[in-house]
């Protein structure tokens, strides 16, 4: 956020006026804040994006857990939590208090240092991912030239936390669960990154701000979204599937499902460390939803967004609406689809998604070099559809009998 370097001195001046009336320290404090030294301005300018990320996104995480439980409840024909406060509004606070005050059990022969470090390493990449997501026109916490590359580099570091959690617990079943989780995450990273490469090829830059800016314009700022292009639609589907598998959400939630090998890599964690694992997973899925919105759904673009203060506020609203939509789709899929078996999972990643993502990159090549737009649309769509049909026929290994339905009489 380059604007913070202009906002920081004004904020300090405002604070100096506000605090100037305090009895003894008011006047010197006002003088200090009114003419701030350079390091103070820089410190405040750095602190503003950090506070924004730390205040907004964990709040979204807390209420996502509540919305998820109520939505899953409604899908399963029951009401979700509604005891703690009207409509269960205070439920996340109750959950937080419960997990904080639970006893922290560490197995006797566990490796204490690694056992302690694993939840920390689970959370750090998820929070770092938020630093490259643009929440409004020109409003990204850190404006990196290599934004998307940084996001993927950081998300591969979360693999370590899975392995460390499973290893340090000295539990054979934890280790097996951790190995399966690592295999799943590492397999789905590849089609996810290749789907993002398609977008980067079209925009010509790895910076998330430029990717979002490239989707502005068009009718009502909507028709330029990449999801409305053939390669963009396929890329969107591939990236969403990869993002769901990265953060271990159903239908890929083998690492953390209750009916799988105990609880996988976080079996031996209780209390606050377990809360950190959950927070890392949910924050990763929200951050990946944010990156999906940036790359495919137009980022902060929507009717009325643009430069200037009012346009900036409208663009922030549009970003959060789209983020909420992606989170809602995630929750909906969690409530309705069954879990994938682990060999089906690996087969799907390597036999279907990876070839499809390479085909998508070639489609972007066609799109770029066929300059007559209708021909480009036709060729690209045909190419993608043909390859999709071929891959699904090749990868379908089990033949199912036609379904018979039995209804309750």
């Amino acid at each position: 956020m380059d604007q913070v370097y202009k906002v920081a001195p004004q904020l300090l001046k405002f604070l100096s006026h506000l605090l100037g009336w305090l009895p003894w320290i008011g006047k010197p404090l006002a003088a200090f804040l009114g003419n701030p030294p350079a390091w103070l301005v820089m410190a405040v300018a750095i602190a503003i994006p950090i506070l924004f990320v730390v205040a907004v996104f964990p709040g979204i995480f807390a209420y996502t857990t509540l919305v998820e439980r109520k939505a899953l409840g409604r899908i399963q024909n029951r009401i979700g939590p509604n005891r703690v406060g009207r409509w269960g509004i205070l439920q996340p606070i109750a959950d937080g208090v419960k997990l904080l005050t639970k006893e922290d059990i560490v197995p006797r022969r566990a490796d204490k240092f690694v056992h302690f470090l694993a939840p920390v390493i689970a959370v750090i990449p998820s929070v770092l991912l938020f630093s490259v997501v643009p929440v409004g026109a020109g409003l990204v916490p850190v404006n990196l030239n290599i934004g998307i590359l940084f996001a993927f580099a950081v998300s591969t570091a979360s693999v370590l936390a899975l392995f460390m959690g499973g290893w340090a617990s000295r539990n054979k079943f934890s280790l097996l669960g951790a190995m399966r989780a690592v295999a799943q995450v590492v397999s789905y990273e590849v089609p996810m990154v290749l789907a993002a490469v398609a977008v980067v090829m079209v925009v010509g830059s790895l910076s998330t701000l430029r990717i979002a800016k490239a989707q502005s314009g068009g009718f009502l700022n909507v028709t330029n979204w990449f999801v409305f292009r053939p390669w963009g639609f396929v890329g969107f589907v591939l990236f969403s599937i990869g993002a769901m598998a990265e953060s271990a959400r159903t239908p890929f939630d083998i690492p953390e499902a209750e009916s799988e090998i105990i609880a996988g890599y976080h079996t031996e964690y209780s209390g606050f460390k377990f809360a950190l694992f959950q927070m890392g997973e949910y924050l990763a899925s929200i951050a990946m939803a944010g990156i999906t919105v940036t790359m495919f759904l137009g980022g902060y673009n929507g009717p009325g967004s643009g430069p200037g203060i009012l346009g900036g506020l409208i663009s922030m609203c549009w970003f959060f609406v789209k983020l909420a939509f992606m989170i809602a789709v995630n929750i909906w899929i969690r409530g309705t689809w069954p879990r994938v078996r682990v060999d089906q999972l690996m087969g799907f990643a390597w036999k279907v998604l990876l070839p499809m993502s390479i085909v998508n990159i070639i489609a972007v090549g066609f799109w770029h070099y066929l300059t007559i737009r209708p021909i480009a649309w036709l060729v690209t769509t045909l190419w993608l559809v043909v390859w999709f049909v071929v891959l699904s026929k090749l990868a379908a290994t089990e033949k199912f009998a036609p379904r018979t339905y039995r209804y309750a009489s």
Partner: protein
Amino acid sequence: MDTIFWILSAITVIGAVLAISLRNLIHCVLSLILFFLGIAGHYFLLRADFLGAVQILIYIGAVAVLMLFAIMLTRHVTGDEGPREVLGGKWWAGMGTAIIIAGLLWAIVRKDALAQALPTGVAATSVAEIGKVLVTDWVVPFEAMAVLLTAALIGAVVIALEEIIRKR
């Protein structure tokens, strides 16, 4: 900016020293990860942004995980031994030699004009240039690298799978 250099160097050197001297292998790999992070920080400080991101992506994301898997698959029953006895156990001999060599290096470097050069305003290289160069001037090494990586992938899988093939 200078203090950042010293802090990053301290992290890197401590990570490397711990990586070769801890008794528990997993702790060794964790301090190796700290070492990789320090080197990535040095790359960012030297304005090689793409290289720093690639360092994190490949070394911490892939090589470190590979080492953890290899450690897990080759566990002893009895646990790990520490460092071997070198120089008949007289560690002060090795330390003295290291200090003498470091002093000699310092004396050479202090007077050399090349080594005392200061940088003159380097802008970060853009990834677009690297991409363009990879497919125009450097396309042959790029394709050779692709073949090498494919061969390494297939070879590693075949070597590690040998047991299952033999049992049939």
